[in-house]
């Protein structure tokens, strides 16, 4: 049962950049990972989903309602964590969260206070709740962002680069939280960290140059590549020749030498060894193919 349907979304900016190019996606409950390099159009898609931007063409339906026709309906069920955000200066976390809770429609004072305190606990900000958010460190501020995104009872949670700036422990706590919530609601997780998607998301898509270049379950996508990725350690001098002769999906430097990963049905050359593809290989190969197309 798809709850979020994105149909042929196109958006270009004044300077001629096509940020979204005919993007269509169908998303059901659960975590959905959106991978893509910088400038792929992820944030544009997120902002459009959050009704902060209108597309040039295309439609988005959530639970059957066109979100740009009835933005209010969507917003009352939306939890949005933007990629980069600030806060009013000199206002404590508690006061600000309470204010945002009112804006989100938590009118009942007692319920609101309970949820605000619970979320502050959950994001480990309870001890600093009386401090101004503007004085928070990057990680603390990010956690505050998470807390405000979970206010009310969001049915669609959009998290744009949520783990940026979190230390590994915090990141784990957050991802746990998301997957727990994600059972009943749609969680859209935009990231360029492949591991995040790999660990959590039953469904994913890769966005590049404004287009969806690959979509599916991470496991199925890695399975499809099995036996097609080869690895060889080469010198930096010979890298050039490999890149021109073979379909190199990525390279990695280790100890002064370079490992080349190549996409090929058979062993492309002597010295190559088969490599069990992770999601990262899927991502890189998709980007490569996207670029070739």
């Amino acid at each position: 049962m798809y709850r979020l349907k994105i149909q042929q979304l196109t958006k270009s900016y004044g300077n001629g950049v096509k940020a979204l190019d005919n993007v269509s996606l169908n998303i059901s409950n659960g975590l959905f990972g959106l991978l893509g390099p910088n400038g792929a159009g992820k944030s544009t898609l997120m902002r459009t989903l959050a009704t902060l931007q209108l597309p040039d063409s295309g439609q988005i339906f959530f639970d059957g309602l066109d979100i740009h026709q009835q933005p209010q309906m969507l917003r009352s069920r939306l939890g949005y964590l933007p990629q980069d955000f600030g806060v009013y200066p000199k206002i404590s976390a508690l006061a600000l969260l309470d204010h945002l809770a009112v804006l989100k429609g938590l009118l009942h004072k007692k319920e609101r206070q309970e949820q605000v305190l619970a979320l502050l606990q959950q994001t480990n900000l309870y001890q600093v709740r009386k401090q101004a958010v503007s004085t928070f460190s990057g990680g603390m501020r990010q956690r505050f962002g998470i807390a405000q995104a979970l206010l009310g009872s969001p049915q669609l949670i959009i998290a744009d680069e949520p783990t940026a700036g979190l230390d590994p422990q915090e990141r784990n706590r957050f991802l746990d939280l998301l997957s727990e919530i994600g059972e009943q609601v749609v969680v859209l997780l935009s990231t360029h960290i492949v591991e995040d998607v790999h660990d959590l998301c039953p469904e994913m898509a890769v966005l590049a140059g404004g287009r969806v270049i690959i979509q599916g379950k991470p496991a199925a996508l890695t399975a499809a590549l099995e036996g097609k990725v080869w690895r060889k350690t080469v010198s930096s001098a010979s890298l050039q020749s490999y890149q021109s002769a073979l379909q190199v999906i990525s390279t990695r430097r280790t100890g002064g030498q370079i490992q080349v990963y190549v996409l090929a049905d058979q062993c492309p050359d002597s010295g190559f060894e088969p490599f069990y593809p992770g999601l990262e290989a899927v991502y890189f190969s998709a980007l490569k193919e996207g670029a070739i197309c």
Partner: protein
Amino acid sequence: MLSALLKFELQYHARQLSFKIAAVLFFALGVLFTYGSFGGAEVHKNSPYVITVTVGLLSLCCIFAATLFCANVVLRDTAYRMEAVLFTTAVKRRYYFTVRFLGLLGVTFVMLCCAALGIAVGAAREPGAIQLLSFCQPLLVFGLPNVLFSSSLLFCTAVLTRSARAIYVAGLLLYILYLIAAISGNSPMIATSVLKPGGPDALSVLTDPFGLSAFFGETRSWSNVQRNTRLFPLQGIFLLNRLLWTGFALALLAVCYRFFAFRIHLQPVKKAPATTQQKAVILSRYNVPVHTQGTAYSLSVFYSQLKQEVLFVCKHIPFMAMLLLWIFLYTVELKDSLTGPYGIHFYPVTGYLAEAMRTVRPALLLLIFYAAELLTREKAANMQALVYSTPAPDAVIWAAKCAMLAILVAILITANIGISVGLQLANGYHQPQWAVYASLYYYSGLPLFLFAILILVIQTLTPNKYLGMLLNLFVIALIIFSRRLGIAHYLLRYATVPDLLYAHMNGYGHYTDAFNWHMLYWCGFAIILALPALRLWQGGQQLTAGQRWRALFTQWPAKARIGLAVSITVWISCGIYIFYQTNIRGHYKSDNTQLRWQAAYERQYKPLAHLPQPVITSVSTTVALHPEAGSYTVTGSYRLQNISRAAISKIWVGVAASVSNIQITVPGALQQKANAAFHQYWFQLRTPLLPGDTLSLLFSLQTNRSGFTAFDSEHSVVRNGTYIELEKFVPFLGYNPGFEITDAYERQRHGLPAQQTTSAADTAYHLIDLETTISAPADQYVVTTGTLQGSWVSGQRRYFHYKTSAPVNFMFALSAAQYAVKEEKYKGVQLRICYTTGHEQNIAMMLQAMKNALDYCNRHFGPYTLPQLTLAEIPQYRGAATAYPGVIFSAERINFLASYRDTAQVNQAYAITVHETSHQWWANKLSPANGPGAALLTESLAKYTEAMVLEQHFGRKHVRAYLRADNNLYFGMRNTGEPELPLALTVDQPFVYYQKGGLALYAIRQALGEAALNTALQRLVCKHAWPGRRATPADLISELQQGATAAQRQVIEDNLQKVIVFALQLKMISCKPLPDGLYELQLRVRVNKTNAGISLPPNDNFDIGLFDGQQLTVQNYHFNKSTTVLTLTVKRRPQSVSIDPYGYVLEEDKTDNEVIP
């Protein structure tokens, strides 16, 4: 490297939208200034004077431009977080600092150059060639140093704080502080400043960072030729001033450079307490139901958002600083409003204080500032994605920001009320009228709030914050100065209403009604503005122009549609109602239409002025006042008599333009034609009116004086304190020269010849018998010319029957109010004071003044012939009092509500009453023939009588302060640009016939002696009172000269027929004790005498006064040289020696008249 960087910097500035708009605005201001009036029509628009005024005043406006550029460009690295990149490049600290500053200085100076260009374009239509030097000199002498001063201050603020808000605050503070300093320091830049003799002192010239006080102080006395040709010389103290402030700016920059850290500015971070790690628990409180519909939700959002805005504005130190500054400013302002001319102390009556602070224009600057701050607040904090992705409707958030501005307005008004109550308590006044204070929230708050909405709408529609602020400044200035730009109708001037004149008798009076309608009209308009603006508001959405445009026309919620429809209906219907009341019922004429009407009247009817018409010999009227409707009716009849030598067959009648519903009939005559536009009527008599024959004329008039008509203080019908100078609003015969345009420039513009001020040919008295019955609501008492015959109540109305006992001049003003009456019979005259209960403080003094003045005038000028003398209180609009035959109308504030407990000061209630009482002789008994110098025979003689009675009652010492005040006022007002006429020829120059007149007659009295002067005056009255011929200044002069010595004749001639002023100086050479216990004083006296600016050799007598600590001994000496050494032998060593100790000699600077041995 420096030049490359500077080039980049300037190009960066030039690319900014705010730069382009500001350049256009300054150019427009330059053009606009050439339409202003600077020193009269004779001063060319491209003269050095006008250019310097423009550059000087606009260099103040440059503070705003520099603020904008500074916040926009100088702080761009901080705003765009480029600092980390920039500070690690090879750019040196010195270059960075220099280039940024020069860039700012350069572009701000370019603004002034744009303004200068504007003048050149605007003045192209003027005579006089454009000279490059007259543009360059002011730009370099005033422009550059001023721009350097303000931009270095702002730049230093920017560099040291790196906060845009700090820059705004600094800019605003600089501007406001400068204005306060200018106002409180009595700078000549401020139009209402009192002129100090000899121009502003050196200290105030030196301490003015913009150098304007030097310029305005010096050029005040410049002639038109000087203004057209002379550049303001850069010399003396002014040069020092320029050097001082340029040096100050450079020193400031140096200090700032010393402290300027070329590093990233880090906020001190409070160390967060160590957080204890907690295991993530199952989200127990997830899935809380939300309610995002309905009123309760909207209200909660509104309240919560408003709370955020209040915290944002009020928990901010600059706001507190601004509020303190505000309180300081208005304390000074209000305190000043309690002091009147001649140092009168007014009682701090609530209403007058409220009136003084009703229009709080500086609040508009704060509103512009905070509107921009509030609207862009989420964006500035980068929080818009959080706030605007919530279901909270944009409109509610916008409304919260709007409400915050309302709170700001309320805070300012509350602060003003606090100041006002504080002033009242400090002055020992313990009856604040809280209702009047509360009404300020409506009368002052609502118009300000409407301005706030307009400001918010403009800011909403402008994509760039700074551009929005600039646009707002421009629009607000346009609205405030719309009248000067030719837009006068209140239907076209946003949230602007006629001045609400306060009177303690009447509150805001009948105007309140019109105010309510205008406010409703503008409220409707404000909503019409606000609703589409809301649709176009971006909030957090990033929409393209096309998407916004579509949003304007689609998706209007039903409530908004209904709201818009209701507002449009309210706006249009109020507009129609106001238009009907103002234009159709109220005969609205714009200033220009009024002038054209006057010009057309003169052109059409002046050629007929010679037609002989009968004169009015008796008037009988019935007047009904209807204060609740703001109207009155008059029905009545005239008896006309042909006093010419020829038969008259045509009667020509006219009525003032403000009268409506006119019916005029002449029994036995045919109305031949009428001109409705000019209210002119002609009647053809069936049988010509033969010389000496009489005829009657009947009329009925109805006049609407509601709050929608232009206020005329001589023609006001209000609930309590109606005052109508009725003789001006009843029919008149023939041509009325009072309708002619008097302003010379306007006459020229309308193609009329210059007005001739020749003496009238008709010097006969045309007295009338008057009988009138006036009715008013039953609680009112009516006063008018004549003796009260009876008064009765019928129905809801009370009637007053007045009749004159002897013929009087054609003067019959009336006043009606809820009067209390104090009566007393004094030497056969019924004295009556009609006043408002609660205004008793000065009544005893005024009654005393009436008695003293009657006694003095009876003894010296001839008997008072009327059986009564009434003094009636009327609201304070302007002036102090007016005299009618047997009646004095006396304004409440200056006479009844001022405190004269300080006996060292002249009691003006007493003085004014004496003055008006003496008008019973000098205007009523002895009427001058119309023509030049007529006011010498009324006002000057009344001033003289005033001085004499004061001297008699309070003593000579007391009068000295009074004469001195008149002397200062005369010198403060006489530089009008028009040539000053001598007293015998005076017209339209009140400082001549009031202030100089009193002093001149005092000087003549000193020369002739009081008895001789009064005898001459008595002869004048005897010869020229009715039925004699009306007097002229020549008659007065010939009476004065009768039996006068040559020296006395010269004094008379000097004072009345010349424009003589003196400069006297006294210096002590020595003071030696003589062997026989006496003292020998050697004094040097310098006398400088000029007639209309031309030096004359002195040949005058002056008093030398010796003060020994208790007694003043005065001796009169003759001086015929410009420097004289006097040797006096005195018995005791004097404490002080002075020339002109009584202070009646016209002299600008009296500080060098006294020496202390």
